[in-house]
């Protein structure tokens, strides 16, 4: 009596294992989709950092035509940064800092 029951359990687990295989593929597809959804805004930031301001407005989701622009944009941004604050800035009275 116990042997057929044991076989039935083994068969049941074997079939559920096959089903789980299909289930895992579905889960993997879901995981990839969620991952893409989570990364999409960052991808857009990278894509648009290799475009001119005009190109970003015209087509925000298109592929950049010239990837070297990314370096030019980074250099432009770094050049716009204010000079680092030094001890001299802090110790100089504000009135003398404002003079041209």
């Amino acid at each position, binding site marked *: 009596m116990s042997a057929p029951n044991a076989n039935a359990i083994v068969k*049941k687990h074997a079939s559920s294992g096959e089903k789980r295989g299909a289930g895992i593929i579905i*889960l993997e597809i*879901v995981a990839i989709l*969620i991952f893409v959804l*989570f990364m999409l*805004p*960052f991808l*857009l930031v990278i894509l648009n950092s290799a475009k001119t301001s005009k190109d970003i407005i015209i087509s*925000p*989701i298109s592929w950049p035509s010239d990837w070297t622009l990314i370096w030019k944009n980074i250099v432009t941004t770094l050049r716009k940064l204010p000079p680092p604050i030094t001890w001299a800035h802090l110790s100089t009275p504000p009135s003398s800092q404002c003079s041209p």
Partner: protein
Amino acid sequence: LKRRGWVDFLFIFPCAFAFLMVIIFPFILGIYYAMTDWNGVRSTLNWVGFDNFKTMFSQPQFLYSFLTTLMYTAINIVLVNLAGFLMSLLATSRVKGRNFYRAGFFIPNLIGGIVLGYIWQFVFNNVFYDIGLVYMGQSLIARKETVIWAMSAVNTWQYAGYIMMIYVASIQAIPDSVMEAANVDGASYTTRVFKIMMPMMASAFTITLFLTLTNSFKQFDLNFTLTGGGPSMRFMDRVIQSSQLLAMDIYATNQSNQMAQAQAKAVVFFIVLVVFSLVQVYLNKRKEVEA
């Protein structure tokens, strides 16, 4: 024993002094300012009692912000926890590269709300507009009907990964033998999740619900950068900002040099947040005991 007391005092003093000066003293001073007519500039203060509190409850903007904050908090508690829980099930399943996905889902939480707000503002106003994901021809953050939902979607995107991590830790703490026993007994996956996993994760739910409640209620950075409080709408015959949450309303009041009024709002904000949080923790702890 007396000498030991002095040593203890010396060790505790720096921390206690900092706590008193940075938290307790400004808090008490804030309550005092809330009962004056201080505008941030004048050096003399006049005692006005509860006038600031009475005024705030007659302001359409404050009342609307209060209701919007409650709605925003309720939406976020559901969305963030649901997304976080489902993602944790995914990240603890037998999916290949689950650690990679875990890290990917957590990344939005590593970037500050200010930067994310500006990124998503661009996505809503340019990208979604380009692909036609709009409501009545306008960006989702430009319509009062959709702006709260848009903000909630961004908050869920940012915060679900963090909540997922708490759930993942809790799922991993469940002994394998329990899940295997349920499997052998023929329990389906849904039965195992609802009847075994979730009751055993009760303490994690207490923490995540508390975190989502307080963080959604205190939301400021995302609100400030993504919508700036807009778009405008009419409420109680006044023009108000439709997505201005309570924290941002306090900031806006402060920016208009009504310091005492802003302080009174902050006191009410604090009381409401504490009451809600305590009720939530009390109810969850009771559930934990039942589980």
